[in-house]
């Protein structure tokens, strides 16, 4: 990891870099969303940065913990200079940000995944469709307010398949896996205490 990249970023972009830190040896810069694409292009093209290797792009949902709610996280590295950088941008709702698919080809699917899972919209993305979930799916499953067990089946279930089926006795199988959850239930741990 290299702190020089962070220095260079702050030198060039000044106020656009909101904060930087190097927790656990990972250099991180939080930037303003409006200059997201510009900074990314700089990272790739600047000779001192030369961050040509796309690694990862994702988002984190800090619902009720932080404002603005979303944080888009980008990891890139340089093949030649061997340094890495984490770039973050904070987004409120509705979450929209520029696409990076023109800068690193690899960002294409990662942005689709981010859109699919968090509903973050990437402006200018050539093909912003759902990638992991099916088009009929409603909602963004990785948002903290999406109930984990809330399924949206595509096919009708067999009428006889409601409860447990004959080979399973009362105590067999995995009962939790055989229920369809319509409402969100607080998670209860093994001792009976609720999590919340």
């Amino acid at each position, binding site marked *: 990891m290299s702190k020089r990249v962070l220095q260079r970023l702050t030198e060039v972009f000044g106020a656009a870099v909101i904060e930087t830190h190097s927790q656990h040896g990972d250099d991180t810069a939080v930037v303003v969303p409006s200059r997201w694409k510009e900074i990314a292009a700089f990272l790739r093209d600047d000779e001192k940065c030369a961050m040509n290797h796309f690694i990862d792009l994702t988002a984190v949902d800090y619902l009720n913990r932080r404002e603005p709610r979303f944080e888009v996280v980008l990891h890139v590295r340089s093949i030649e200079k061997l340094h890495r950088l984490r770039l973050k941008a904070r987004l409120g709702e509705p979450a929209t940000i520029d696409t990076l698919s023109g800068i690193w080809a690899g960002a294409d699917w990662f942005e689709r995944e981010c859109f699919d899972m968090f509903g973050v919209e990437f402006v200018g993305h050539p093909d912003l469709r759902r990638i*992991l*979930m*099916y088009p009929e799916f409603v909602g963004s*499953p990785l948002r903290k307010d*999406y*109930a*984990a*067990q*809330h*399924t*949206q*089946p*595509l*096919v009708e*279930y*067999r009428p006889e*398949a409601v409860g447990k*089926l*004959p*080979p*399973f006795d009362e105590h*067999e*199988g*995995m009962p*939790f*896996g*055989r*229920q*369809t959850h319509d409402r969100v239930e607080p998670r209860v741990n093994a001792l009976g205490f609720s999590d919340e």
Partner: protein
Amino acid sequence: MTASQTYVFDGSEQGFATTRFEDLLNWAQKYSLFQYPFVTACCAMEFMALASPRFDMARFGAEAPRFSPRQADLLWVVGTISQRQAPILKTVYDQMADPKYVLAFGTCASCGGFYDNYTTLAGIDKVIPVDVYVPGCPPRPESVIDGLLLLQDKIQRGDRTPGIVKPRTDPRVVASQLATGHSTDVAHAQLVELRTSKP
């Protein structure tokens, strides 16, 4: 219709000839299970192991893969089925020609396993009927072979109710544990005894 009923001659609606003929058909069906492997996830690793030399599915007559569902008899559902995959599974099942059987390979296919969330199907029996469930994550090839034997047995008996592969404990192990006198082991042995004994 069970095996004990099939040999009744007088007053039965089944004649001797039909019975023997059905026996023959069932015999042929159980030893010629062309498989359609609907392989999706981790269980594929054990499925490979099952098909390869050490466990050798060939000797059960169940090794010939037909990737066209029309020609297959046994649908192996190997691995997690997601909600997105479910319509495809159902289509494949509908495309198969009768008689057709389904074997749920592994916990995910049987009941969803620990993937209890927005995207997985909690057991393929929600969309298609299953003949044999093989629990395990993934099941060891031995228990799959148990499941295959169970299926063959059911085909021979003409029994289409779903069956499940019960856990097996080696009687010799149980005996040695009884000899050493661990009480938990005794309880376990009794449990095994209970589960494996017929009702």
